[in-house]
């Protein structure tokens, strides 16, 4: 049995002579007969400092100790020594000590590798206790957030005094499952950072979570790139808009030229009617210039939506209130339907109001241009596949295919003197700022449907980002 023990076992007398050893011992440390234990284990000429065997002889109790020795090939070896007292006579003194050593060199190497991985991997790793205090943090995390052991994670990540809403670590503590989310935090230099976080459980036994590991990837650079792309698209649209702006300016200049000409004619002929006609033309076109400049400046500014939880149906009712009389005067029926399953959503009320105003106003104009009777404009709010959807539908004149191609990309109006041409571009911009998209479905002569889709996940993500 002595030979079968899967450890290196040696029996040592009070003079530190190895009197017996198993084959594992010999294979590991080499020959032992007539040699002192400290010579065989450590290639020393005298007893080790803090010798566990000496302790056992002195106190008669088992001792466990970590030690570093040298194997028979001259390599450093780490081992754990379990040293047991052997008494020949019951109640007598300890005559021998049996030392069982288990090498931990392999384990030690794994630990070193793990430590390197933990520290050097290019993401943030923290281990959080049930009280949300950080018990371990890797090098990347410490570099970005500072020395944080013992501090609450919400204090370190976000400089908050209370737990974050929708905390993924809290969810993992509750259910032991992996949770992921996008978060925004504040680095130690005060800069905002965006990160994608994944939380996993470190179990205590099989039924409770002792700690949570949080692994976060810094996506700040990607987020900035995303913002730059959106900005570039908007500026591209602005650039196209500037090109198309020339059209509106030319018409305004025509109006000013015309007003000046007619006033001049009127003055020459002493014709008050002509003077008034010309003056009114000048006034109209000065007003158009003001509107154009305001609309364009507003459009060209990039802006984050100011989100608040609103009832989408209420926003639609406001628009119906605003336009129902105008529509009725022209024999157009304006109505709205909000489906029962539509819940509150984080939206910029002013922005959505602008979008709906533009779409409803266009729909009413399309009905006015149509020759048919019984025209109507219908606004619906619905939910589908986790998206909030607004639709404005009319059975008016419809949109020519050529115009539909250009409708969101060109500074364009078919409304003659009314409209600056920025309505649909502005609507598209606002929808995109909400993380949504706008579609148009129409055929000439068969009405049109504009559909704004807002993915709820995206709305919530924007809402949370704004809250941080």
């Amino acid at each position, binding site marked *: 049995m002595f030979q079968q023990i899967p450890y290196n076992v040696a029996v040592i007398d009070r003079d530190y002579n190895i009197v017996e050893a198993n084959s594992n011992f010999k294979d590991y440390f080499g020959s032992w007969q007539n040699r002192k234990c400290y010579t065989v284990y450590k290639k020393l000429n005298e007893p080790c400092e803090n010798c566990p065997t000496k302790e056992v002889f002195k106190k008669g109790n088992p001792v466990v100790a970590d030690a570093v020795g040298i194997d028979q090939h001259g390599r450093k070896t780490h081992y754990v020594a379990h040293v047991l007292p052997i008494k020949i006579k019951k109640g007598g003194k300890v005559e021998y000590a049996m030392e069982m050593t288990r090498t931990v060199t392999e384990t030690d190497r794994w630990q070193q590798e793990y430590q390197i991985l933990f520290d050097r991997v290019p993401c943030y790793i923290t281990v959080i206790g049930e009280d949300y205090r950080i018990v371990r943090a890797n090098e990347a995390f410490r570099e970005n957030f500072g020395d944080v052991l013992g501090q609450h994670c919400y204090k370190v990540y976000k400089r908050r005094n209370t737990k974050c809403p929708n905390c993924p670590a809290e969810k993992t503590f509750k259910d032991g499952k992996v949770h992921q989310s996008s978060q925004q935090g504040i680095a130690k230099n005060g800069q905002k950072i965006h990160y994608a976080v994944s939380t996993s459980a470190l179990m205590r036994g099989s039924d409770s979570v002792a700690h949570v590991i949080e692994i976060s990837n810094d996506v700040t650079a990607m987020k900035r790139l995303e913002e730059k792309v959106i900005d570039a698209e908007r500026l591209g649209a602005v650039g196209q808009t500037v*090109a*198309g702006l*020339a*059209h509106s300016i*030319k*018409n305004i*200049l*025509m*109006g*000013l*030229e*015309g*007003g000046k*000409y*007619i006033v001049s*004619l009127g003055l020459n002929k002493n014709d008050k009617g*002509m003077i008034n*006609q010309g003056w009114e*033309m000048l006034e*109209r*076109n000065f007003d158009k210039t003001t509107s154009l400049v305001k609309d364009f400046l507003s459009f060209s500014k990039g802006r984050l939506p100011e989100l608040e939880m609103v009832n989408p149906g209420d926003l639609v009712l406001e628009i119906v209130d605003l336009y129902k009389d105008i529509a009725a005067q022209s024999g157009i029926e304006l109505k709205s339907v909000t489906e029962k399953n539509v819940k509150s959503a984080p939206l910029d009320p002013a922005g959505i109001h602008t979008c709906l105003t533009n779409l409803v106003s266009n729909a009413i104009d399309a009905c006015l*241009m149509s020759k048919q009777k019984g025209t109507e404009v219908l606004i619906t709010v619905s939910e589908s596949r986790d998206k909030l959807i607004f639709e404005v539908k009319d059975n008016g*004149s419809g949109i020519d295919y050529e115009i539909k191609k*250009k409708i969101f990309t*060109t500074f*364009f109006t*078919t*409304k*003659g*003197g009314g409209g600056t041409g920025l309505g649909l571009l502005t609507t598209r911009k606002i929808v995109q700022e909400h993380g949504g998209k706008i579609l148009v479905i129409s055929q000439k002569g068969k009405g049109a449907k504009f559909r704004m889709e807002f993915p709820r996940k995206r709305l919530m993500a924007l809402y949370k980002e704004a809250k941080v």
Partner: protein
Amino acid sequence: MPEIIKKKILVVDDEKDVREFLSAALVEAGFDVILAEDGNIALEEVKKQIPDLISLDLVMPKKSGAKLHRELSKHKEWSKIPIIIVTGHARDDLGKSDLKELTMSGPGVYLEKPVKPNNYIAAIKKILNMATTDEEKETAETVHLQSDLKNIIDNADPETLKKLKEMINKTK
């Protein structure tokens, strides 16, 4: 004394102020004016009475200037009505291709908005062979030359453009 029959000009433009302006200039120059705010209404007016000339905007709702011209071209009588194009879309995506189509196959003269009243009237009088004073003739000639040159430049290849530039620089 025989009654002077005034020439009838059909002004087609979706902008009310543009219609009023061009109408005032035409009336002052001794023309009768009919106004239309889109291609459909213009067609109705042509059916009622063939005008002596159509002053035509390009980009309009319901029926564009180019679409109106295509319809007029199919009709024996209507295809002969002279047309002058007055547009703000000569160089952008909305009007460029229509203008090219019209200047290549149809009316060669176009004026870019904003127009000066005397240039407009002079161009129309030239088309109708009505230019009287020397000044009017010169103005009309200049307007037509400018229009022709713009067409040439818009359709020229880079080599031709280089030669044109050299020629113009030599005259300075």
